[in-house]
C-alpha cells in the first residue's frame, strides 16, 4: 500500500478503504505528516476540479468525507502546531425556526476535511445554545446558517447575546445560507460571510490568522 493508493481512494471518495490504507501506512512506519501533506494536495486538486465544474458537489463531498475519516483516525498521532493539527474549533448550527441543514452539513464536511474541529449543534438551534456550546467547547468560531429570510434575524441575536454577556471578542461569528449576504453580515456585525460552502474553509482559516495577529 502506498500514499498514492491512499490518494486515489480519497479521490474516489471511498472512506472505508482510505482509512484502511492509512492505517496500514501508519503501522508500516510512514510519517502521518507526509500522509497529511499528500492528502492536502489531493483535496486542493479536488477543490480545483470542482471550481472548474469537472466534478459534481456529491463527488467532492465524498472525497471530503474520506479525507475527514483519515484525519480523524490520525488525530492522536499529530501534535498540536504540526501540519494537520486543528486549524480551529467551530460550533456550527442552523438558527432557530429553521430546519434546513444541507448547506450546514456540506460546510461541516469541508471544514473537517480541512483540519477544523467541528461541533454540529443541529437545526432549529436557539441563539443561547450557540453561545453555551461555544463556551463549553472553547470554540474559536461560531458558524450560523439560515436558509430563510424569516429566520435570518436569529443570526443577529447570537451576536447580541455575545455582546450582552461580554463575550463578543472571544469568538468570530461566521454566517451563511442562501438569503444571507455581505451586506447582512456588515449590518449585524458578523466577522465573516461565506457565500458558499466551498469558500468556507479558506475564508475561515484566513479569519483565524487575523485573530492570531
Amino acid at each position, binding site marked *: 500500500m502506498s500514499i498514492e493508493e491512499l490518494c486515489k481512494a480519497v479521490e474516489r471518495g471511498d472512506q472505508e478503504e482510505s482509512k484502511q490504507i492509512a492505517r496500514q501506512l501508519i503501522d508500516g512506519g510512514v510519517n502521518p505528516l507526509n500522509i497529511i501533506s499528500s492528502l492536502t494536495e489531493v483535496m486542493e486538486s479536488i477543490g480545483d476540479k*470542482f471550481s472548474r*465544474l469537472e*466534478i*459534481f*458537489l*456529491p463527488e467532492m463531498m465524498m472525497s471530503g468525507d474520506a479525507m475527514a475519516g483519515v484525519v480523524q483516525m490520525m488525530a492522536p498521532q499529530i501534535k498540536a502546531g504540526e501540519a494537520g493539527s486543528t486549524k480551529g474549533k467551530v460550533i456550527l448550527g442552523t438558527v432557530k*425556526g429553521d*430546519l*434546513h441543514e*444541507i448547506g450546514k452539513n*456540506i460546510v461541516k464536511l469541508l471544514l473537517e476535511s480541512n483540519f477544523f474541529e467541528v461541533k454540529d449543534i443541529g437545526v*432549529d438551534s436557539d441563539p443561547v445554545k450557540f453561545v453555551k456550546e461555544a463556551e463549553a467547547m472553547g470554540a474559536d468560531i461560531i458558524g450560523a446558517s439560515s436558509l430563510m*429570510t*424569516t429566520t*435570518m*434575524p436569529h443570526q443577529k441575536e447570537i451576536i447580541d447575546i455575545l455582546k450582552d454577556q461580554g463575550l463578543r471578542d472571544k469568538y468570530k461569528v461566521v454566517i451563511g445560507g*442562501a*438569503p*444571507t*449576504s455581505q*451586506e*447582512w453580515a456588515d*449590518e449585524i456585525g458578523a466577522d465573516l460571510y461565506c457565500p*458558499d*460552502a*466551498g469558500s468556507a474553509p479558506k475564508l475561515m482559516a484566513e479569519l483565524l490568522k487575523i485573530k492570531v495577529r
Partner: protein
Amino acid sequence: MRLRVLSAEDTHRIHRAALRILREVGMHVMDEDTRKTLLKAGCTESEPGNILFPEKLVERTISTIPYRFILFDRNGKICIDTADEEPNFGPGLNCIYVLDHRTGEHREYLLEDVREAVKVCEKLQNLDMASGLGNPVDVSPDRQALETVKALVDGTSKPFPFIAHDEREDEKIWEYLAGVAGSWNKLADKPFALDLTGPYSPLELGVEACRRLKFASRRGLPVVCYPAFLPGATGPVTLDGAIAQSSAEILAGLVVHQLECPGSPVITGSSVIPMDLQTGMIAYGSPEYVLAGMGAADYFSDLGVPTWIGAGCSDSHIPDAQAASEAGMNIFAASMCRTSFIHNLGFLSGGKTGSLEMLVLCDEIAGALKRIKRGIAVSEETIGVDVVKRAVKERSFIVDLHTLTHMREAMRASPLFKRISIENWKEEGAKSTRNKIKEILASLISS
C-alpha cells in the same frame, strides 16, 4: 390546450410511491397537538415524533379538498381561477436583492422597492396577482411581511401571496386583512391574499407549519402548502422520485389542513427546485424546474388537488439573453400545463434577485401566452369563405369589411416588442429591448 408530461399511469405510480413513503417512512411531526389529532385519526407513531400515515386517511382527507381555487381582487372580481383556460400570472416574492433599474446595481431590498414593485404590478396588464417581490430589510424582522402586506393593500387591488416571519406575525396579517375585508367571513368568502407555508424537506412538519395550516383551515382562508425540495440533497435526484417524495410531504400537510376543517381551500404545486450539483446553486431557470412543476400539476390534477406552478424566473443575474430565454421557455411550458395559476415572475439569480425589468419582460411573455392559450376560435363568420369569394378578384382583402371588423383582435399588440422598420428603429435611437423596458418602467412608475 393542456399538455401532460406524466401519463395517468405514471401519476398513479407516483401516488403509490408517495403513499408508501407516508406509510413506511412517515413524517417527523413536531407539533404535539397535531400529533395527537393524527393519532386519533388513525395514524401510528413508529418512534417518538415520527408519524406513519395509513393510505385510507390520506385518500379520505384529500378527497375533501375543493378542486377549484379562486382568488378575488378587492372589488370582489375573480382574478385567479385554477379552472380558467387562460393562464393567470403573478410575481415571485421574498427576494433578498433588488436589481436597481436606475443604477444597474444589485443591492439590499428596501420597503421603498416593495412600494415600487406594487405600483408596477398594479399597472402591468397581464399580471393577475401582485407582490412586493422582495423582503424589505429596512423594516424590523417581525414586521417585514406585515409592512409588505400593508403596501400591497395601499397600492393595488390585485390579490397577493405573503410569507410571515412567524405564526404571530401570520395571525397579525390575517387579522389586518380581515379588517380590510370588513370581517373574517367576508375575507373567507372572497379571499384576496394567500399564505405560503408547508413541510420541510426531507419529511418534516414543523410546529409553525402545522399551526399556520390549521389556523387558515379553521378560518377558511386560502393557503399554499408545499416544501422546498432540492433533488439530490433532500430526496432523490431523479424527477419522478423528487415528485414522489415532495408529494408525500405535501400530502401530510394537506391531511393536517383538511382534518382541521374539511373542505377549506388549499393549493399546492411545484415544490421541486433543482440544485445544480456542479455548483450547488439553485436552478430556477433550468428546464427541470418547470418540468417538475408540470409533473406535479399532472399528479395533483389527477388527485383533484389544485396547484400553481413557478415560471418567469431565471438563474442569470441581469435581464439578458439567458434570462429572456429561460423565462420564455418556462412561461410557455407552464402555460401549457394542467394548472392556470403561474407564479414567480420577475426572479433573477435563482430567486435571490427581484427585478422590475425582468417583471416587465415576463409580463410581455405572459401576454403572448394568454393570446396563445385563447387559441383559434372557429366559426362561419371568422372562417370567412364569403370574404374569399368577394375579395379575391380585386385583391381587396386589405380593405374588406371582414378585415376591418376583425383586425384589432386578429393580432395582439405588443407594447414592448414593436414591429417597426430598421430605418425607424435607427431613427428612434436603435434601442435595445432592455432600454425599452427601462422606458416602460419609468413611465409606469411616474404615472
